[in-house]
């Protein structure tokens, strides 16, 4: 699973090359092919050429629907201005054909009991952070009818296992005196975040992706080094703000995202 490519061609090529070397042929993309980076068309075309099943990310949706008027997505005016500038830059350059492709992407993908989403099953904008309430996290997977949920959006890879869960309840109905006690045993479920290929934020500039072994169920996070300087040069040549190159080369997000961990952008 690869996610959050953000128009970073050098990172995408390095990751796909790394995947190919391991002989893995089922690749799923969790969205955000575009946004901030300098090569949106090239990255979309690479995904299309390789016929990689992809679900729609929040940036992909924004390119189709137009600018999201919700300001609460950005934690500062500076971040918002940069985000809007990046949006307009990308919207002007992505071909109509590639826009149609982004519009055709489904919200979720499913393979047996594996579910693939960008943010969460509820929304492309909901962050499933590793420290979110464990019961709420389990609810996301269980309500979606999956055993393992693969997501992106946070740009920080992790594997989370939720197990040994139970909830005991007592019910009081009309009449006020009839109480019944019940216990619900919770199934074991997992959430796996693939991190980001094009704009990693986990403290290093290496691109990340995850590999799931369908036989053993094992999940591993992979890090791939790529030539960041190539993308930085492309950013500058493309006329995008130079500070994007600096931020990328230091492993920072292009424009900081909202600090609120449970933020869901309501439209």
């Amino acid at each position: 699973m690869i996610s959050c490519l953000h128009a970073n061609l050098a990172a995408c090529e390095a990751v796909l090359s790394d995947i190919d070397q391991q002989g893995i042929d089922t690749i799923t993309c969790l969205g955000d092919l575009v946004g901030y980076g300098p090569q949106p068309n090239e990255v979309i075309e690479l995904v299309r050429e390789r016929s990689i099943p992809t679900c729609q990310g929040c940036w992909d949706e924004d390119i189709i629907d137009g600018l999201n008027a919700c300001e609460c997505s950005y934690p500062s005016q500076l971040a918002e201005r940069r985000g809007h500038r990046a949006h307009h830059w990308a919207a002007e350059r992505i071909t109509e054909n590639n826009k149609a492709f982004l519009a055709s992407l489904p919200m979720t993908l499913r393979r047996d009991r594996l579910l693939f989403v960008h943010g969460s099953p509820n929304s492309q904008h909901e962050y499933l952070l590793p420290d979110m309430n464990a019961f709420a996290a389990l609810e996301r997977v269980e309500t979606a009818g999956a055993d393992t949920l693969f997501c992106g959006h946070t740009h920080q890879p992790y594997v989370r296992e939720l197990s040994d869960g139970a909830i005991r309840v007592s019910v009081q109905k009309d009449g006020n005196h009839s109480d019944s006690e019940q216990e619900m045993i919770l199934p074991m479920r997992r959430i796996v975040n693939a991190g980001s290929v094009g704009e990693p934020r986990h403290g290093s500039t290496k691109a990340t992706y995850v590999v799931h072994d369908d036989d053993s169920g094992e999940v591993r996070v992979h890090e791939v080094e790529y030539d960041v300087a190539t993308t930085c040069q492309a950013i500058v040549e493309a006329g995008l703000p130079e500070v994007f190159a600096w931020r990328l080369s230091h492993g920072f997000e292009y424009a900081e995202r909202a600090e609120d961990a449970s933020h869901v952008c309501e439209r």
Partner: protein
Amino acid sequence: MERWALVSGLRGDLDLYEQIQADLQKQRGTAHLFVLGDMIGPHPNCDALLKRLRQPKRRDLQPHCIYGWQEEQLLSLHGYRGEAKAEELHRQSDESEVRRLLQAVGTEHLNWLASLQFGLIELDCGLIHGSSADVGDELDETTSPLILLDRLTRLEVNRLFTARSGRQFRLQLTGGQIRSKVRDHAGEQLNDQPVPRRSVIGVGSSGNYTLYDPASDHIEFRSVHDQLRAR
């Protein structure tokens, strides 16, 4: 601290509302009335009730209203909800019912209905028609405890009062736990999280309403029909 009365599903029935008000006034210690949506419905004329809610009579317990599913459908039909087109209503009702709903409410009430809040948070309690996931969220005593806990977590409240299902119940989370194991670039973290002691309360609908005492956390399910039968 005084008791709360929680009512829903009046659906334009002014007589029912007056009965509930009379019932409440007979009991001492109830000072706060919350109306959890569905004040309107495909009733011949909701305007009288709406007028009474907006301009209570002197003896009335002052109602605090939030919007519900019916209000949401009506506002969608009138274009107050952006692109939304009241699909749920169309799915559940035939054209004549949709028309009845439209005709039941005078346009002079629309702005007021649109100004109502989605829910209220009072003293660590969430008061909402469905849930913060959706105004049409039907939560009852058979709903998965995992989902009920999620709805409590979303609002970050200890008590969630909901009306959409029409059921009267109190479901208390009494125990349990879950283990979370996270593996990331920093290493592995293990966390055991207990189930918090919280409740979801279905307040009922129409003539069935609920009294709640925040001080003692006591719930009483009542019905105006009982009072009528008792006479």
